[in-house]
């Protein structure tokens, strides 16, 4: 008993220390966001600013249209998450449970598209969205996610494969069609995976730079990352303000993470099976 406690104490200590190490870059960023430009560039670097410049955060909100950028980012990230959850779970369900010709070949093709580097697809995408008159709108940034991206398909398929057949059979006896099985049984049971996909999609879209830069031209349509970048110039940036802005933009990610976390721990795939 004593030894067990001791072992546990050591484990917690190690975990605690490694968490602190993980926090160092974040803490450095926080400290840098509270410096004057002069303090920021001084060598040797001072870790803790002499006077905490909380005004940097006020300056960020005065500098650019941060509120507007945030709204755009929320629209893009929100619609992307909705689209990814719906489309990927549907396709994933089809691959996991339905029978149709060429199923395996199609699935291999879907995985194959993951091998194509994103950069190669940019120009064709750009031309298609141009034909659709969607340049300088937020649409190209989220509509892609409604078309079931391969990573999400793979993730959902794996989750659905793990759901015991008994549920499905029981539901069929009750007279459910495949769509009802998907909607009433598979979706609720795959919540942890859906939460994972939601977080991945949200973070990806929230931090994305290349796509918004290519599709958006007017400042009022900018999303946060390029909005923040536009605060700095070609030659000189108030880097300390950029860091403050970047930290502000982290808040929503933390909120989404905290919100989705409770689904991670709920994993009751085995409920109701004897």
């Amino acid at each position, binding site marked *: 008993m004593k030894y067990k406690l001791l072992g546990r104490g050591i484990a917690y200590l190690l975990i605690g220390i490694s968490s602190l190490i993980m926090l160092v870059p974040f803490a450095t960023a926080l400290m840098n966001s509270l410096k004057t*430009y*002069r303090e*920021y*560039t*001084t*060598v*040797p*670097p001072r870790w803790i600013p002499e006077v905490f410049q909380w005004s940097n955060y006020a300056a960020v909100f005065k*500098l*650019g249209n941060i509120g507007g950028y945030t709204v755009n980012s929320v629209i893009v990230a929100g619609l992307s998450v909705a689209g990814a959850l*719906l489309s990927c779970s549907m396709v994933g369900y089809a691959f996991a449970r339905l029978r149709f010709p060429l199923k395996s070949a199609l699935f291999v093709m879907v995985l194959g598209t993951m091998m194509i580097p994103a950069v190669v697809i*940019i*120009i064709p995408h*750009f*031309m298609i969205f*141009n034909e*659709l*008159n*969607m*340049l*300088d*709108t*937020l*649409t190209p940034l989220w*509509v892609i996610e*409604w078309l079931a991206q391969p990573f999400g398909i793979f993730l959902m398929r794996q989750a659905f494969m793990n759901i015991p057949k008994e549920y499905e059979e029981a539901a069929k006896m009750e007279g459910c*069609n*495949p*769509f*009802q099985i998907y909607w009433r049984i598979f979706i609720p049971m795959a919540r942890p995976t859906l939460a994972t996909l939601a977080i991945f999609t949200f973070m990806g879209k929230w931090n994305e*730079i*290349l796509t918004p*830069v*290519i599709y958006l*031209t*007017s*400042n009022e349509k900018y999303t946060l990352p*390029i909005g923040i*970048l*536009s*605060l*700095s*110039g*070609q*030659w*000189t*940036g108030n*880097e300390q303000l950029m860091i403050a802005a970047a930290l502000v933009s982290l808040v929503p990610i933390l909120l989404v993470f905290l919100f989705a976390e409770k689904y991670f721990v709920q994993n009751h795939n085995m409920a109701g099976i004897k």
Partner: protein
Amino acid sequence: MKKRKGLYSWLAALLLVTVFASGCSGGGQKEGGAASPPKGEDGGKQVEILLGYYSSDSSDAKMKELIDRFEEQHPNIKVKTQSAPYGQFYQKLDTQIAAGQAPDVWLSDGVYVMKYAQRGAAKDLTDWIVRDLKAEDYYGLDFNKDAEGRYWGVPQGIQVGVLFYNKDLFDKAGVDYPTEDWTWEDLKSTAAKLTVDAAGKTAEDAGFDPASVNQFGLTFFSITEGWFSVMKSYGGGVLDEKAENSIVNTPENKQAFEWMVDGMQRGIITDPVDLKSFQSNTAVFPSGSAAMRIGIYARVQAANEAGLNYDVTLLPKGPDGKRVSPVIANSWVINQKSSDKKAEAAWEWIKYWATEDEVQKQWTELGEAVPVKKSVAQSDVFLKAGEQPANRKAFLDSLEFAQTLDNNAVWEEWVGKFNENAERAFLGDATIDQALSDADAAVQTVLDDFYKK
């Protein structure tokens, strides 16, 4: 089969919703590429051009003001703009060029003008420049001239290299300020007195430790604010006149490299590893960690922001008295694919930018670049633009012996290759001979890949 009906109708509904939603989010805005110019009263004289530029928050507001003023003066031209932060601007531009959707006129970094020219994206402006601009009124029209004598752009603002020096550090060491007679050797011997290690010893003292330098004599990196002017003033260089062949492996370059490598090994000049310990390559001088730097005009902003007590002078001469300053002329470029009507409207914009004193003055006040119009550059608008640096005339004088950075279609690629090899010499991982012959081969390969195909 009946069972599936629910799924299909649902899918159809979802598709409809998606299409409908995306159709609405356009907000009724027409995209420049697809929009036909609105017909004016006079039977379609109205023309709309798309103007692309990179900007920061502060310059963006000024640019918009100048565009509004332009539209007032030219009621028949409507200007749509597209701007992006500098780092992302070119990704977007290159995508648009590939898709045939590029702006009618855009602001190009000086080092990229030849890339757009030689890849067929930029319009040849020679006839218009000869017709409308008096060469002697401007700085730097020739910076966009190719070996055949054709012009591909008109400068928007000029960056030229000078020697920045921190007066406080000179005073503290009791050393005389740099003069215009300096050679690179003079610079180095003075820089040695201004190089201080952790124990407070200078590079001239016995027991000086080059591994623990706290204050460098000269900060130095990459091409523009590093090796370019040294190599050139020693009589060397990287590319030949046509910028299609490497001339790296020469005795003159070897001499220049000996000067640089010696300085770095003695701890006087920042080497690539030293630079890693700073927030950025450009932060060394403003933070007071270096007594001198080779710097372009834009560096004035950070130095003033940091509250330095500093001034500028001409860059030193080579052993034979040759002097070379690096120059980058950021320029307006017109799209090769634009219709004649749009190209002419775009030219109106360029003319407005270059010839109007008011525009030149307003842009100068931002403090980002040396104005291209001589009358404005030589007036108090530029020369008395701020307290510091006092000797702003040095920027204008440097334009007399300024050279562009061997710009060509593959500029970024060859500079990358050259830097890789130069760094090995700077860090002592390769002998100078070895580094130069490797750089020569690597640079030539990059050039041949483009020019010999």
